[in-house]
């Protein structure tokens, strides 16, 4: 079983987050990162940058160790740099997506 966290944000911010995650060897074993492009750019809208998604797949059990704290800090810092929204697709609204579970845990830890 694995948990998937899907965040959507400006490309420059998301790629920097991916780079930061990659630069920590302790995260390499426990999470996998994928970037997906979106089709949000239109010619009648000026954006801050292209919007992409980062898909972070966590191995099970990660939430209890130091690697999870590190990942959470990196994501929090990326949120300081710009909005990162959790993908609200149908599966998330229906509570079927693992990403929703990760987010709930994330918020719980912050309290």
């Amino acid at each position: 079983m694995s948990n998937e966290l899907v965040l959507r944000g400006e490309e420059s911010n998301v790629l920097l987050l991916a780079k930061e995650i990659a630069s920590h060897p302790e995260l390499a074993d426990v999470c996998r990162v994928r970037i997906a492009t979106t089709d949000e750019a239109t010619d009648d809208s000026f954006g801050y940058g292209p919007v992409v998604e980062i898909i972070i797949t966590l191995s099970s059990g990660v939430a209890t160790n130091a690697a999870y704290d590190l990942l959470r800090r990196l994501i929090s810092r990326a949120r300081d740099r710009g909005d990162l929204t959790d993908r609200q697709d149908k599966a998330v609204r229906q509570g079927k997506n693992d990403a929703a579970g990760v987010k709930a845990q994330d918020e719980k830890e912050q309290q």
Partner: protein
Amino acid sequence: MDVTLDAPSGAAALKLRSQMLFLNQPRQDPENLVLSAFAWNYRYLHETNHWARYHGSSAGVLLTLLRRSRDALASYFLETLESQERRRLLEQRQSGQLFGQPSGVGSLSGPNGARLEQDWLALYFTHQALMGGVDPPRAGGIAVDWAINRALHLTWFNSEGKGMLKHPDGLEPHLTAAPTSAPSPADVEIGRLNTRLLFECAAVLDETYMHTLGSVREVVDPALWNMTAHTIEGDYGLAYRIAERLAGRDVGAGCMLALIDFALNPVVPGLHRGVAAVTWDELQPVRRFAIAARSLADHSPDLEHAHPTSELLGAFHADTETATGLRVGRVDSELSSATSLQGAARQPVHFTEIIPNMTLTYARKLHEERRATPCSITFFGLNFVNEGALRFVRPETWWIGGNWWLFPPLQVSAGQYHWPAERISQDDATNLFLGTALSSALDDIVHGTGPLTKSHLPEAVLHDTAERKAINQELQEFTGLPLAW
């Protein structure tokens, strides 16, 4: 799929369709307050930059007037339909028929409808072509030159005394058939460049002033610099790379901003006194940009080696005009009789004119600013370093002391609609909201087939059952059609 409504995007954006700035407030509990505050300021500067450059350029004013003419025409078209034709319009929308297709919706009301359809398409196409790249998009079966000439004529005819100059007898606006000198997509990798990316390049370059000038550079987080650097390496820096390739050498950032400003300010019939004839090379921003960039191969403006000033910019314009034969445009007409947001919001006008009235009031002030201090819009980022940066500290109240026209007034934050409550009443804000929602629905109605789009509007308003019902009622009265968000 309407991505923005279902999942609020992480990106800040100025939506031209609604003229609303989408920008969430800074994080409530940031990990790093300084990083969070600066990151937010960068976004605000970036989108404000678009606002000032768009409405403060002659191309932007022309685009506003083309859109106003198009919306007025669509609204008139709907008014002319009999009830039976309205039903057929809805059926044709549902079956995927667009304007401009054989037996499309325009032809359903006879020769008059077909003529309105052609005129609407000419206005729509010309807007797309000005926002597009060196090669115009396909004109949907109508001749490109005819469409542009017709759009220039209709816009001037509709805007005479309402944003444009008096239309002199015998001075019909038209494209002249001068041989083209703009590079074609085959010459260089120029095919992907469009007018939007010129604006984006300018906005990213202006961010670099924040990084490199003033006291901010001492405290700014290197992560923000990395993000800007990454953005310039992508599509937002495409204009820069193309210009350097065309010039055959490195070009300074100040010179690049002046090039973009030159591109965005063509002579426009109806705005620039005494001009009726232009070439497409002279009118279309990307073509202007490419031709002017190529001329840099032969000369190096003083602007490249010094801090930008209005004098250096004037010299740059004069040199570029000589080198390219393309003129720098200006706005000689009175864009608006209103002098404030409130004044614009309270002018009794048709729904299609409410937002143009608002943006032209801002454009009027921005073009006054351009005349008084030519540098202030060309090098917009410089307004926000050193003493000028003070106006950045509390942008939501800075207008009290002036400069309100630099900032987009209508905002969407976390899906909520916001307006400057100190300057306009709730009724004014409602009026502006209806103006933007109804006029931006017209493209969907006459030229779309699916549900009405809404990603350019604040989602909270349309999620509220009572508000949505009220807005839909206005929409149905306005269009005479049983359509709803």
